[in-house]
């Protein structure tokens, strides 16, 4: 790094003594993402850089960076401005700096190994599953088809000029001429399906072994539990964004970093399966779609609820108020007006922002005899954050 001086802050790993542990520093998904971003950037970044990348207020970004520095994960330095003035504070991931990193790097090597170990487990499971699938297919074929019939079928296919991929060996076992189950064949749908199944089972097992349940019956809470289970293998796994019925998940790809260059489709199938299985075990069956590049790098998956989360019945929203741009009480007045048009029992969704807003809405709802069903952090389709309140109109 040119023009910057770096300084390693005294790392106090003992939280009891007032320091910050690595575990605590990386517990926050945002902080884990910032750390991963710094590692990938391989250059010192300023608070403004991080704030812009992660769409944070600079003060929030600074707090995260200082905590990472306290945990010894990043190096703090100063970069002089060419035109003079106050030097900018810069942050560099410690494993990119030429400094001693014994405890931190040991931890990182451990998590990298854990990711590789999980990948190994998945691939071994896939091989077992494929072998088992071959045996079952062969047995089914033996049970259900006469060799002469098979010959006839093949002949008829030849007559239609459709290549038959299978033939029967002398022993009666199938031999696949096109080798459609060959792991070298990345477009094999059977292989992709099996990879998905194996990874989903592993994702469920990871969450089950964690033994945690979501503290709220929401998709986001389920995703937090699922990612907590996966984070021991992929420390950068995090919720990137969230909405009322979706969450964007990033950072799981790290587990498949070694596989992706040689088998991208297999890596994707395994990653999808792992995330879907983990979320299902956390109480949120989902469908996954590609959500593009996550802030801070890496790929993100958009998980949408495939069924109502947990046992909570789905809530039909009859009216909506976006009070984020309004003063606190003006927002409540808007909600008052909107709820007047609803029938008793119908639900009003309010998006609020600002300190004290949820309390103001709760106070009004309580006084007016309405029921506050839920208060949760949410992001709208445009990525704008807010606090979502669901208010059921009282009988009046």
């Amino acid at each position, binding site marked *: 790094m040119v023009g910057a001086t770096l300084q390693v802050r005294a790392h106090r790993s003992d939280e009891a003594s007032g320091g910050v542990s690595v575990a605590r520093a990386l517990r926050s998904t945002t902080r884990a993402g910032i750390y991963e971003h710094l590692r990938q950037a391989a250059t010192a970044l300023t608070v403004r850089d991080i704030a812009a990348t992660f769409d944070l207020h600079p003060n929030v970004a600074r707090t995260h960076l200082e905590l990472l520095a306290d945990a010894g994960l990043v190096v703090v330095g100063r970069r002089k401005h060419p035109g003079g003035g106050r030097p900018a504070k810069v942050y560099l991931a410690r494993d990119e700096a030429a400094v001693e990193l014994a405890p931190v790097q040991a931890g990182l090597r451990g998590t990298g190994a854990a990711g590789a170990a999980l990948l190994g487990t998945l691939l071994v499971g896939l091989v077992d599953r494929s072998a088992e699938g071959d045996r079952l297919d062969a047995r089914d074929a033996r049970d259900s088809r006469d060799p002469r019939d098979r010959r006839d079928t093949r002949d008829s296919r030849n007559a239609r000029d459709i290549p038959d991929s299978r033939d029967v060996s002398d022993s009666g076992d199938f031999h696949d001429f096109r080798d459609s189950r060959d792991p070298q064949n990345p477009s094999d749908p059977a292989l992709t399906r099996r990879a998905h199944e194996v990874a989903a089972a592993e994702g469920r097992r990871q969450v089950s072994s964690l033994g945690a349940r979501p503290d709220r019956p929401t998709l986001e809470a389920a995703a937090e539990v699922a990612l907590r289970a996966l984070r021991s293998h992929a420390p950068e796994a995090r919720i990137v964004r969230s909405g009322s019925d979706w969450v964007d998940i990033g950072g799981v790809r790290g587990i498949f970093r070694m596989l992706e260059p040689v088998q991208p489709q297999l890596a994707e199938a395994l990653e999808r399966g792992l995330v879907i299985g983990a979320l299902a075990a956390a109480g949120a069956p989902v469908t996954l779609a590609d959500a593009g590049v996550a802030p801070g790098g890496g790929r993100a998956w958009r998980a949408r609820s495939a069924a109502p989360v947990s046992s909570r019945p789905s809530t039909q929203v009859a009216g909506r108020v976006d009070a984020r741009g309004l003063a606190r009480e003006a927002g*409540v*007045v808007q909600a008052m007006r909107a709820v*007047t048009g609803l029938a008793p029992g119908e639900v009003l969704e309010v998006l609020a922002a600002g300190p004290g807003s949820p309390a103001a809405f709760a106070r009004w709802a309580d*006084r007016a005899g309405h029921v506050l069903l839920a208060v949760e952090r949410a992001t709208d389709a445009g990525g704008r954050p807010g606090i979502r309140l669901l208010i059921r109109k009282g009988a009046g």
Partner: protein
Amino acid sequence: MSSLLLLSGDLVWGLRMAITRIATEQVTVVLLDRAAAAARPGHTDAEAVAAAVAAGATVVAHDDALRRRGIRQVAEGIGVVDLDRITDLLVEGADQVAWL
């Protein structure tokens, strides 16, 4: 019979409605948001508000809306209420409620 008129936009029309109803029913007018500006003495719509007060309507203004507009003093005959009181008026205060 009582009516609660909550005005946040079209002030003059709402006040005219209040005056026409006052002969037969008890009318309460709540000035919210932009309409609260008319509670200020000397406002261009202050005469309409004064007419409603003179006709017998109860006119109140939302304290937070006044504060946001820097209005510290309201015209004579206009009360100042907080959000809790407005909530109470909505819940139990009137047979008919209209948002204008």
